[in-house]
């Protein structure tokens, strides 16, 4: 949905910088980055789509042929979580049918955080960068072999270098041991820094992910 932080995630991933007041996407935008996975360089092409409902018809064609997808919701807005199933339907209908999904909930800092922080005097704000956030990361993969949870250490990260690539490389590594041709869909619960305003619990999101493979 709109305003969950899709473009912000993409910007962090491609530019390795946190972007406050990240402009919303009009239609679709293109991002690219080369990552290294087990010594191999892989170029990732990422399509970032507009979140507003009416754009769906024009952005849909960019799902087709995707090797994977990130579905992002805002943990502080239940409505964005409730819409996940309809986005998932679109993603399923338009991507490779034999799809394996990874589900990940990850906490990141986004524009919302910045907005909140802007109300803090500038001096203090400048001392608060980089913001320390604890990333909770749990990965569960469901393939032919069944569920094999991969526990990750809770780690301390700084805003702006939240490593989406970790997620992606995990996906790639695990996938390579399988047939390697399947699509992957990630679930990202964004704005984890706003935990106090949390509207969707980690557990239920995980359940949603598990139920949908």
């Amino acid at each position, binding site marked *: 949905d709109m305003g969950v932080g899709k473009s912000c995630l993409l910007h962090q991933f491609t530019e390795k910088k946190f972007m406050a007041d990240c402009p919303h996407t009009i239609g679709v935008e293109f991002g690219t980055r080369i990552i290294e996975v087990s010594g191999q360089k892989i170029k990732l092409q990422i399509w970032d789509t*507009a979140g507003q409902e009416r754009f769906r018809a*024009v952005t849909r064609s960019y799902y087709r042929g995707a*090797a994977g997808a990130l579905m992002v919701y805002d943990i502080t807005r239940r409505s964005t979580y409730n819409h996940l199933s309809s986005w998932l339907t679109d993603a399923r209908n338009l991507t490779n049918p034999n799809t394996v999904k990874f589900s990940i909930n990850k906490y990141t800092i986004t524009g919302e955080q910045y907005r909140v922080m802007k109300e803090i005097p500038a001096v203090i704000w400048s001392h608060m960068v980089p913001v320390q956030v604890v990333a909770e990361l749990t990965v569960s993969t469901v393939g032919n072999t069944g569920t094999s949870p991969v526990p990750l250490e809770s780690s301390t990260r700084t805003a702006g270098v939240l490593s989406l690539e970790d997620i992606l490389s995990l996906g790639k590594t695990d996938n390579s041991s399988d047939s390697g041709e399947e699509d992957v869909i990630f679930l990202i619960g964004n704005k984890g820094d706003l935990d106090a305003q949390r509207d969707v619990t980690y557990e239920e999101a995980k359940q949603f992910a598990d139920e949908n493979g």
Partner: protein
Amino acid sequence: AEHYLDNQFPNEDWKTAISRVFSDRICPNDENLGNQIVKDLHRTGYTGLDLGSNYDNQIVLKRVLLAYARWNQSVGYCQGFNVIASLILHVTVGDEIAAFKIMVHLVDGVLPENYFANNLQALSVDMAVFRDLLRARLPQLSKHLDGLQKEANEHSSSYEPPLTNVFTMQWFLTLFATCLPTETVLRIWDCIMLDGNEILMRVALAIWAKLGEKVGEAQSADEFYCTMSEMMQSAVIGKLVLADEIIRLAYRITSFPFPHLSQLREKYTFNITPFAAENSDDRSADENQEGVTQNTSEIANFDDSPFFCFPGLTSPIPLSPSNTKMKSVKQQSLEQLPNRLKLTESQRHSPHNSMMSERMSTNIAALKHQYMTIRRRQ
């Protein structure tokens, strides 16, 4: 804008209407609209103007957007309006009522209906129409891009939408506000208000003509997107295209009104069904032609289409090559190309379609002349 509003809504009491749409009282739909608008307010900023960062400006922007959404509830708020409205507010120096009126004029009057509503259907149509115009006016570039798209589709199981779509979508939706420097954008907007929405097509063609050479070097779809993203970054700060040049070219492309534009729009309006997932609007050009045969009959039934009113007048008008000297092959000059739409591959194969193209080449001026003659006789 005032003129448009008075003509279009002669019975509307504007004072009341204005106070209604700007009212502080909360309307039933406001919560949802307000949420969407507020989500976008702080991320309206783009190069040149930074209205998004100023709190007071954001409040005015919100009021204008909400006023428009209340005024035209079938359109409501569409992402991109914030960009348009903030630029209008910049011009009106914060006068929200003037900005609202201009917004109504622009969205309801000047731009095609459903550009921002109804799944952005008219925008999808224009994206398809534009590909046809590109094919006719810049055949080399168009062919190159189609080639890259085809190659990308063959190379993997993936599907590559037409390469120009990403850009035309954004250009048309924000009327170039996010891709060119503000001064250039404002000049283009003047042209749009004076000479109609076909300026969008003309300017987009002019931009592609400028980008053509560099884009022509791209060897893959991926390379194309990367090159484009670099070029668009320099375009927005005014380093790629000069306002004078773009506007001059846009006006020189062809006569007004843009030949066949309304016919093409009509054709794709029937052809495109953005609602069904399978029938995505982004089918390749060849696929797009499949539906034409059945649709021509539909279009032919349209009484108000001047184009089919005089079946006797279907002979193509000889072209007038105004300028015959060629510059370079790469720098295909738009105005040098024939005024006539080139037939696409599949159109050539289909007798029905080729007939349609013949008809399309009929000079509108000739039709007008014929029409006047008939009226005189009546």
